[in-house]
């Protein structure tokens, strides 16, 4: 019986623990500095908005861990001594392991902006971030205006959160259109309009130059780089992406890049040390996937995979077809397969775009121009059935086939209006115009 120590109680670490318990009798300890119990990080926003309390974000009852003989240790690890198989804690304690799984997650990016460490300036990733947010932006008298810097998924969520408390928000987006490094133009522009409909002061092509302090070391205003405009504010959210949280591992002997380098078996260069989730950086790329994927479900999958290896059947991490989802204010977004934005797609990928006249629903289908093969789909305001999309991608269906059968993939609630006919007729028209 080995002692398996898992550093990090997020989705990756907890999934690993659960599956190791399912398949073995190893002693399991999960270490976290953040919270006593696993909670859903993606639900932090709903606590702030008052949809849920913290207790609702915990997927397992507190008795679950004891019942499954998973030990929980609260503590901040300051260093790893791999040669002694020991973790050192900031309070001087230590913990030895037989096998170590690093599931340490990410931290918010800070790109060296002047004033980035002032009071009232923060990212949104951890439970502690939420506590800080509650202090600096509890309502619109404590925070008369907030500035959110960085137009990605966390940025738009933070903007939604703040506006749920009637705090005016200025949203600085570096790109010329929201998230257009990922989303094709039509979609990105629809989301721009949707953001503005929610009374967010959206500033595109705007970079942060500097954050100005008041006399108490608290944020007073920000300055926009392009225009030099000064925007007075009481809170600044830094949401320009996240990066693996690995500073404490620098002298551990681990092979580090931006993240902890792992092979397809999620093994690091040190024996008996694995890395999973946000902090793992794949040595070999997997399909079109990024080498570091800070995504909920990939963390879960890596947790399951590493559990297999630890329980005796060395297993490679093989994520299936890419999929993901998000929500932009009221508009749900789902993606299956690969649809690249105009900024990064290559010439062989062509797009069919359809948008509903109400400006809250649209979709984009990517096709290989030469073969007619269906590459992927983005939908906004229309839910798609994962099972069907996954099957079509595996079967390498053509876009023509997908368009014909799109109704089979619809996952909207019963009685919802459907748009497949409209989408198909628009698709057929476009084909005619392009072939003329």
């Amino acid at each position, binding site marked *: 019986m080995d002692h398996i120590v898992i550093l990090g109680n997020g*989705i990756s670490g907890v999934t690993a623990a659960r*599956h190791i318990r*399912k*398949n073995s009798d190893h002693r399991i300890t999960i270490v976290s500095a953040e919270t*006593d119990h696993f909670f*859903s990080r*993606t*639900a932090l926003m*709903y606590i702030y*908005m*008052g*949809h*849920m*309390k*913290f207790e*609702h974000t*915990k*997927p397992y*009852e507190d008795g679950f861990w004891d019942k499954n003989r998973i030990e929980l240790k609260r503590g901040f690890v300051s260093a790893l001594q791999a040669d002694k198989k020991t973790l050192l804690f900031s309070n001087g304690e230590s913990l030895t392991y037989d096998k170590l799984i690093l599931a340490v997650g990410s931290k918010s990016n800070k790109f060296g902006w002047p004033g980035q460490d002032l009071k009232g300036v923060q990212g949104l990733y951890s439970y502690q971030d*939420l*506590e800080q947010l*509650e202090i*600096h932006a*509890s*309502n*619109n*008298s*404590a925070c008369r205006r907030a500035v959110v810097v960085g137009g990605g998924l966390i940025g738009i969520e933070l903007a939604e959160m703040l506006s*749920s*408390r009637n705090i005016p928000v200025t949203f600085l987006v570096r790109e010329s259109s929201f998230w257009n490094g990922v989303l094709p133009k039509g979609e990105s522009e629809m989301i721009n309009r949707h953001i503005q409909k*929610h009374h967010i002061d959206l500033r595109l092509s705007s970079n942060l130059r500097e954050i100005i302090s008041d006399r108490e070391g608290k944020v007073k205003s920000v300055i926009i780089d392009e225009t030099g405009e000064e925007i007075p504010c009481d809170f600044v959210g830094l949401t320009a992406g996240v990066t693996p949280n690995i500073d404490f591992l620098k002298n551990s002997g681990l092979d580090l890049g931006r993240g902890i380098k792992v092979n397809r078996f999620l093994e690091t260069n040190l024996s008996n040390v694995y890395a999973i989730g946000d902090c793992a950086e794949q040595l070999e790329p997997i399909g079109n996937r990024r080498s570091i994927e800070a995504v*909920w*479900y990939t963390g*879960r*999958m890596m947790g*399951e*995979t590493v559990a297999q290896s630890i*329980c005796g059947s060395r*297993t490679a991490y*093989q994520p*299936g077809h890419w*999929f993901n*989802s*998000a*929500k932009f*204010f*009221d508009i*749900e977004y*789902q993606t299956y397969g690969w649809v690249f934005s105009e900024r990064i797609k290559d010439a062989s990928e062509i797009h069919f775009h359809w948008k509903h006249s109400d400006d809250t629903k649209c979709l984009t289908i990517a096709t290989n121009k030469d073969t007619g093969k269906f590459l992927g789909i983005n939908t906004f305001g229309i*839910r*798609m*059935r*994962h*099972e069907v999309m*996954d099957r079509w991608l595996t079967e390498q269906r053509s876009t023509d086939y997908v368009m014909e059968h799109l109704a089979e993939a619809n*996952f909207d*609630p*019963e*009685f*919802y209006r459907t748009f497949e006919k409209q989408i198909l007729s628009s698709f057929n028209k476009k084909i005619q115009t392009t072939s003329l």
Partner: protein
Amino acid sequence: MSNFQRDMSLTGGPPKSLNSFQKLGTFIGFVGLFIIVLAGFNVSFPNKTFWLALSLITITVGIILFTWASYRNQTEGIKNHGVWFKSISGRGLWAWIAGLSLTGFYVVLYFFPQFLGLQAVGDNTGIIAFFDPLSRTLSGNPASQWFVYGTLYTVAILSFGVKFIWKYRHNRYEKLRTISVMFFQTAFAFLIPELMARLHSDTFSLPYYDLKNIWPLNYYNFEQYRIDSFISSGTIGLTLLIFGIVSIFIITPILTYKYGKRWYCSWVCGCGGLAETAGDSFRQLSDKSQIAWKIERWVVHSVLVFVVVMTTAVVATYLGNDPTKYWLTKDLFLLGVGLLLTLVFTLIWVFKRKELQKDAKYGAIGYLVILLSLLGLHYFSGSNLFLFEAETLRKSYGFLIGAIFSGVIGTGFYPIFGNRVWCRFGCPMAAILGLQQRLFSRFRITTNGGQCISCGNCSTYCEMGIDVRSYAQKGENIVRSSCVGCGICSAVCPRGVLKLENGPLEGRIDSKDILLGNDVDLMHLLNNH
């Protein structure tokens, strides 16, 4: 662990105050209630029709104004902002005040109707008399305390129904479902029975019959006075009696097989109707713990056994022993009940045993043995059927279940325990439909592959206390006997993970492992471990 609900900054917590139109709406609504309260103190109104109309209209207008003020500046979509910050929906002071007031109302209604103006001799006074003009318009008779209750109940479903529709205006399932409960309450529970009373004459008298109120929810449907009046009312009465029997034994199983129990619990039923409309603000308060689920299973099925025992005993008392007078004798009836219960048990045991949890097996066997031995004991020793007098059973059921459980606790404690306490822990109809739904129905909530992010919105807003997330995050479909199919889990899900569906029985529950994103080989390994 620190708690976000406390005020952390010097300037106070998150915004939770009402805007001025919401305040106005609340005020107008309370003016309407106040007029009724005044009537309760026998304030004499010069023109009762006018004042009654005024009070009912102001209540409705107040609620609708509040609704408009709440949602007019919001875009379509889920906006549960501040639900847990607000006193009324977050178990704060206002929740307790509302809970105690509602509970108090039910106690008065069931046990002290004299305070509503019920008089043993002569015309009613107070609130009951205040409702006379409306009652006379509909049925021609003066109002009773039940008419007062029915009217307020209908007003609540209609006006809070408007609120619900407005709140979920982006969701056609929710809109249609709510229009349906509003219709069934107004037409079937309120207007039709009142209008039916107009047909009464010396020779023709139907019992007050809400056709959608099916036994065993309508636990008194087969009591002697009702059967007598059904039978004495000729073809119409007999048709209604047969409809009552057909409802539970034929219509209900078919519809539940096709659509799940939601066809009743969240589309038709009056209790469900109130829970879904007036109770919507409290759905997040249901207890999701494993222990609550366990208690629920034992309590709700015990109530079901209780109602079967009580009804059997009551019906048996008025059946004769002479087969030449009427074919259905007491012995034949009891034999029939015994056979039916045995048949149901055997079918479930043979075909569905594998799907039963351990405690369900113990419970089913235990209750069957007890029921059959009580029947046998009575048959062979002539002791009291089920040990107690039928009348005692009937009275205890009416008091404990009909009044205390469904009214005082079930509705009175909406703001504390959530809006479906009765439906979840107490309703025997829900128990029967739940058995059918769990074991023999095409209904399920489909989980959309691997899209779940375990956020917990679905579980939090499940009024039946189902931990929806625990299934969704495993990629498992949700097939639970208690699910009333309200569709809110699917509505609040930010990632489009849940869909209420009717589909084939095969693979109804199976987890779609591969879709969790894992490679087929890995899942094969996992499953074989």
